[in-house]
């Protein structure tokens, strides 16, 4: 009898069917991976299992019993815990307070709260499962990896029988991910069910016993990992034979330096130093990747170069001209284009039309503005040509940007950024959350941009992407550049060690 079984789950959102008759089963004591591209319906399915969403159709059974969850509380009471991609933690609370939040059983269920008992218990659990965190620390002080441990501790404290993890390795180094897998295997060995959501094939094969593949909101297959390869899983996931992130050979004509950073420093949002003495050069025609675990200064680096964040030290030179820094307009005029990490709220103004977003940076220019007045017809023309040239699927230029799918939105951003004929392009996680065909499109544009003579800085947490695209790779750790590798010869192991801050050669 399976621990979890879902039958014919359908869930519709305005304009999309996120789950379309999905079937899913996971047994006791197994690590079961839920594999699919972004938008395949994995998150929706897990949100249904955790009571956050109610399915429009279909049934959920736990250990053979039909259940109906009206709220996350019902799911928690049934022993289901989830570690979301964006952690569900209360930042000003301590670790212990977060762990007992909403728990209504036993000790912590009483009306009064006694943090000391709980702190002891949390410390014990942390040691047993090799995920120790100081129970008295405030969550906002913890690194993302530590915060993830708190999420797992919450599940363990509650004695969850079923644990769901949504893309848990995005915030980890390959080595930290290994350690997480050991914890997960230990939990499964105790008879718990671990559901591991991912779109990374090698992780799935490394940790899971079985894999269920979703595509376009439907179940494609459930297979044993022992009997499958990354290739076979990939074709199930995408629905056709694909190359798994291989390098595409490209004519490389490297020119002079277009972007030079010398000793650049910057502070992060919390006021602490986020960038320290960063020195790097990007030449015309090359793609330089910045690898690193999320939160090691990559965002600040992108923002410093593009003028969105003031620098505290050093100089940034674009095409031979030094920038004052901290002024996005200056950077734009100097020829720096930027595909930001948060494309929906930074890359565009989401409620404004595609047309408005097409001229987000060029509205000051003479072609668009006539003195203080805007030439609305010119804006419309420009939007229409972007829609055609970049094959943006939409009903027209007046559609609000938020209605575009991730891939089409990214095309609008790329089209706009390329239209400024930049010297340098900073692309931060340009394919995050996109489906395979959109990823291919974005990669193609980036390659074309480099071939056309742009210097491209690719900031990504996805090592496959980096290895497929980059000419050179620099690795960031705690705001510093800790190493530089040639992409032709770099390996994931070598990158992983650098990402963890290990700079000594390993025997």
């Amino acid at each position, binding site marked *: 009898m399976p621990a979890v079984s879902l039958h014919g789950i359908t869930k519709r959102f305005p304009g999309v069917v996120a789950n379309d008759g999905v079937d899913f089963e996971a047994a006791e004591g197994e690590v079961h991976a839920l594999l699919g591209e972004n938008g395949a319906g994995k998150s929706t399915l897990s949100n249904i299992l955790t009571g956050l969403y109610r399915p429009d159709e279909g049934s959920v059974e736990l250990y053979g019993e039909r259940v109906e969850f009206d*709220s996350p509380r*019902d799911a928690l009471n049934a022993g289901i815990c989830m570690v979301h991609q964006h952690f569900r933690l*209360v930042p*000003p*609370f301590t670790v212990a307070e977060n762990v007992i*939040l909403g728990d209504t059983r036993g000790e912590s269920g009483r009306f009064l709260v006694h943090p000391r008992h709980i702190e002891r218990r949390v410390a014990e659990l942390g040691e047993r499962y090799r995920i120790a965190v100081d129970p008295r620390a405030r969550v906002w002080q913890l690194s993302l990896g530590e915060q993830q441990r708190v999420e797992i501790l919450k599940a363990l404290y509650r004695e969850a029988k079923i644990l769901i993890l949504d893309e848990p390795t995005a915030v980890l180094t390959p080595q930290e991910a290994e350690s997480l897998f050991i914890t997960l295997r230990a939990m499964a060995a105790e008879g718990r069910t671990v559901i591991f959501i991912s779109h990374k094939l090698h992780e799935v094969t490394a940790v899971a016993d079985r894999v269920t593949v979703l595509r376009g909101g439907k179940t494609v297959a459930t297979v044993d990992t022992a009997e499958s390869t990354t290739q076979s899983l990939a074709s199930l996931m995408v629905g056709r034979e694909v190359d798994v992130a291989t390098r595409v050979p490209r004519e490389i004509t490297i020119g002079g330096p277009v972007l030079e950073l010398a000793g650049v420093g910057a502070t992060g949002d919390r006021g602490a130093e986020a960038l320290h003495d960063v020195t790097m050069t990007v030449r015309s025609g090359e793609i330089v990747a910045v690898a690193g675990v999320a939160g090691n200064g990559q965002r600040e680096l992108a923002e410093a170069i593009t003028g969105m964040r003031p620098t505290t030290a050093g100089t940034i030179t674009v095409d031979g001209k030094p920038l004052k820094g901290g002024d996005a307009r200056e950077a734009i005029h100097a020829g720096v284009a930027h595909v930001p990490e948060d494309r929906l709220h930074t890359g565009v103004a989401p409620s404004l039309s595609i047309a408005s977003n097409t001229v987000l940076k060029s509205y000051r220019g003479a072609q668009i503005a006539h003195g203080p007045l805007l030439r609305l017809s010119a804006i419309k023309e420009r939007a229409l040509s972007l829609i055609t040239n970049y094959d943006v699927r939409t009903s027209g230029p007046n559609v609000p940007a938020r209605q575009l799918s991730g891939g089409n939105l990214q095309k609008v951003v790329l089209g706009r950024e390329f239209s400024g004929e930049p010297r340098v392009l900073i692309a931060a996680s340009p394919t995050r959350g996109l489906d395979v065909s959109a990823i291919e499109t974005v990669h193609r544009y980036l390659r074309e941009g480099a071939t056309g003579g742009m210097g491209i800085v690719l900031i990504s947490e996805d090592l496959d992407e980096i290895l497929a695209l980059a000419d050179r790779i620099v690795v960031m750790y705690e705001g510093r550049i800790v190493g530089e590798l040639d992409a032709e010869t770099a390996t994931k192991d070598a990158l992983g060690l650098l990402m963890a801050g290990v700079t000594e050669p390993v025997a």
Partner: protein
Amino acid sequence: MNNSILVVVLASAVTYGTPLLYSALGELVAERSGVLNLGVEGMMLVGAVMGFWAVQTIPGPGPLVLIIAVCVAAIAAGLMALIHAFLVITLRANQIVSGLALTIFAGAGGLSSYLGNDLNLADAPAKHAFGAFFPHSMQTLPVVGPIFFEQNALVFVAWLFVGGVAFYLARTRPGLNLKAVGEAPAAADAMGINVTRTRYIHTVVGGAFAGIGGATFSLAITPQWVDGLTQGAGWIAIALVIFAFWRPALCLVGAYFFGAFAGLPFTLQARGVTVAPELFQALPYVMTILVLVTVSAAGARRRLGAPGALGTPYVREER
């Protein structure tokens, strides 16, 4: 000695600080759940008018009638808060506009005036009012007499409220849930806490507190019904919550501090000192602005107690 200016000022600080304290505690509770309610002034006035109505209409022994009147005031103001709660929690309306709408709806020139007029409450002396809680002999004690023993029961009950709210927030599970909802509603929701219910309850309870604050005017300080009786105390209460960094104990201190400014002009005038009363009346507002500026200038630890999700609706099922 009991006429010394310091004692008189302190005594009036406690008197005028008490309605501020109730209302600010109420606002604090609502804001801790993430709901900003700028309708305090309106809720206070509705509490004041309904409390006064209860005292004038309900027969029975004085103390009992007064207790009932306070409850009536709390319920009436709680109902006002319920309108706000429905608009901002269920209908996700802009909290600022909705709070202002509540003040226009319920405040001076609105429902409170309408009720005061229709129920014929104006210009009548109160049938019962809160008097000094302790016997006369204690009121004549030096210093503590006027400051402490001359005060009415509502002053002391307010202290219980402060202790209660502080304990609730720091030591109880519903208090922990409340803070989680105000800081990170998505996290609270994922952990099985009903965000909507938590916000409704605390917004309405916060409104009820404001009603008691209003009733403090009409049943103890004045005690009668005059249109617009609270004279802007509701806005000072909102300022006070910020001034107190969203902490109940600091609310107590701040309420008496601000209360002193409300009473000071009268005290000084009685002694023949002519200082423009506006100077003192403006101080709570100016000081609140200064506190806000200091806090925001402090930069990194900028929030200093302001609930993380204050003013933002929580929507679960939206993509």
